[in-house]
């Protein structure tokens, strides 16, 4: 009787193990046939994203007809999580993309490129200095940037004209900006549209040269200068009343729609939105610098680049591919068709084609004095908490000091 039970139990256990093994075998992916192509893992949120990456590859193939790159990846929002699990799985890809602002977070995944740069005689001096700085982690470059996008101030030129105001140019003081915004705030219309998150406030602080991260790479959220800058930004809503307080769950589409529909006269955003805004707006649109206390142009640059996975089998081939993907004609083509501001100075004029001379001047002035948005490995937490808490800052329920202190304590740096 006992033996029988034991046999049954053993058989049951064996069946369970076989079942688990079968299920796990079903989960494991098999290796694709090798055809000499490189795999690139990147964000592919839409057909438009896929078209952009394919356009990169097809332009690069003009440099090297033998180049083969297959593109795969999840949406932009999911990319930052899935890239980590993708590299832990079978057949990890060799080529990755990253934003400069995420380079710290992905530093464990990205191979230092300095030796490859030297070996391939790759001239980095032709690239935007701030973006290279943004892609540098622990003193080594982790990705070669393909764009260098200085955050700008978009304005509705028609509303400025109607209010009898002079539109801003390559200089814009905070004092003048607040005076203009107040004049443009009437009834339902606001002077500025604001979105949630720390990206735009960080562009505001960097316009005055104040960074969120100190020279040692630690968070400097509670430094008096940074606190003061963020409080100034909150005050645009609470004290000056020139903007609506954003709601925590509002995406940037809400503030963008407020601007393009004419409900807000100004908006701070990246230059990659120029084409989209110009198409959506039925008014004359202009761009200026993010206002600074002195009025001089100083930009926060955002941008992305190509890197190589730590566990890539053939880094030389991957780097060779990156040199083609970031060649001047490729970046010029991207600037013309996709509206990116290229990371190579000599390709920047391609962005200006079809835009007003003032827009080109503003971008040139900003790139002349730019700092990348440098972050920390815990920046995701900072971003999440700032989105949660900033609502209270804009409403005046809490001060920037209280909020930034809370965030710093939670992040624990």
């Amino acid at each position, binding site marked *: *009787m006992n*033996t*029988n039970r034991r046999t049954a139990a053993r058989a049951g256990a064996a069946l369970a193990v076989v079942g688990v093994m079968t299920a796990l075998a079903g989960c494991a992916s098999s290796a694709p046939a090798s055809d000499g192509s490189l795999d690139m893992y990147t964000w592919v949120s839409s057909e438009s994203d896929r078209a952009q990456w394919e356009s990169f590859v097809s332009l690069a193939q003009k440099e090297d007809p033998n180049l083969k790159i297959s593109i795969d990846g999840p949406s932009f929002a999911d990319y930052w999580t899935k890239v980590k699990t993708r590299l832990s799985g079978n057949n990890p890809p060799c080529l990755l993309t990253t934003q400069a602002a995420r380079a710290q977070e992905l530093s464990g995944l990205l191979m230092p490129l300095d030796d490859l740069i030297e070996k391939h005689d790759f001239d980095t001096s032709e690239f935007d200095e701030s973006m290279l700085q943004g892609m540098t982690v622990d003193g080594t470059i982790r990705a070669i940037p393909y764009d260098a996008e200085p955050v700008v101030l978009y304005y509705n030129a028609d509303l400025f004209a109607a209010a009898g105001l002079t539109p801003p140019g390559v200089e814009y003081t905070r004092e003048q900006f607040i005076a203009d915004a107040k004049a443009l705030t009437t009834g339902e219309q606001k002077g500025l549209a604001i979105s949630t998150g720390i990206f735009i406030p960080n562009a505001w602080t960097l316009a005055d040269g104040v960074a969120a991260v100190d020279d040692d790479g630690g968070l400097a959220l509670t430094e008096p200068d940074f606190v003061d800058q963020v409080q100034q930004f909150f005050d645009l809503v609470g004290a000056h009343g020139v903007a609506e307080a954003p*709601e925590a769950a509002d995406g940037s589409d809400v503030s963008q729609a407020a601007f393009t529909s004419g409900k807000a006269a100004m908006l701070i955003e990246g230059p990659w939105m120029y084409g989209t805004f110009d198409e959506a707006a039925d008014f004359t649109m202009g761009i200026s610098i993010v206002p600074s206390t002195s009025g001089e142009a100083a930009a926060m640059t955002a941008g992305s680049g190509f890197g190589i996975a730590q566990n890539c089998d053939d880094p030389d081939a991957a780097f060779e591919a990156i040199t083609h993907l970031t060649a001047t004609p490729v970046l010029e083509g991207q600037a013309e068709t996709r509206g990116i501001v290229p990371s190579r100075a000599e390709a920047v004029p391609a962005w200006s084609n079809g835009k007003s001379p003032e827009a080109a001047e503003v971008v040139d002035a900003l790139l002349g004095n730019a700092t990348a948005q440098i972050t920390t490995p815990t920046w995701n937490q900072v971003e999440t908490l700032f989105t949660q808490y900033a609502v209270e800052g804009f409403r005046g329920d809490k001060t920037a000091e209280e909020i930034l202190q809370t965030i710093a304590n939670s992040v624990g740096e």
Partner: protein
Amino acid sequence: MASITNVGAARRVAAPTGGGKKGQGWVALAYLWPGLTGFVVFIVVPLVGSLVISLFEWPLFGSPTFIGVANYEKLFGDPTFYTVLFNTVVFAFVYTALNLALALGIALWLNTRLRFAGFWRVIFFLPAITPMVANALIWRLLLSQDGLVNSLLGGAGVEGPSWLSDSQFALASVIAMSVWQSFGYNVIVLSAGLGAIPKEILEASRMDGTTAWTRLRHIILPMLSPALFFTMTMTMIGAFQVFVQPQILTQGGPGEATNTFVLYLYRNGFVFDRLGYASALAWMLFLVVMLITALQFAGQRRWVNYDK
């Protein structure tokens, strides 16, 4: 040797009839196999896996480091843990109470000799089968600063608050949306419970001259108590897992006003890259839900009546 012979004999006997005691293990296993596999693969393995992960500092990429119970120690020193636990408990109790009160009221109303009762039942059930993300997005538009709710209040001369940005109203807004989303399910369950109450008992009590309130208090509610207990337990367990509503409506803000346990757990695991800490949080949630459910089962003896 004897036992081997016995086993062989048992097999010979059991196989043709299927009724022998010694062969029942195989038959039972054959029946249990599909369900058991699912239970082991999808419940037991992840459960044990998360317990193991909770003892590590475990990033999504890279090598995990064994840290013993440090994640649990950190958890008890983390002020946000207490905040999200408090928010979740408040949400669970208020939401469950409102949900059951509303569902019971509607179920009683539908149980009167109402025309088109089936139609109304479908209407109330519709939100429960609509994707919650879609519902939450619509509610976000309704409750936004210049949304429909404040426009209507404005029309009546009342200046509406910032439902989702004011910490006094944000959690209440999330609860309101959640109750609207899910009370229809409980309406169906409680309606079925009401339908099962024998008409003869109610008629007899009517002939004895009872009032509607007396019938509700002394006949309907006691006889409905098993259904009420079921809905209460399931609603409470679901409430502790609230995630989508704060994620879509408020992102957990303003401040931590609507940050809930599962939202905090999810962010730790998949946004902040701390799978170990997220697993420790998951086990704390598991224990809290187990405790609350055990208390409910312990308390049911006092008020749930299974007599017919």
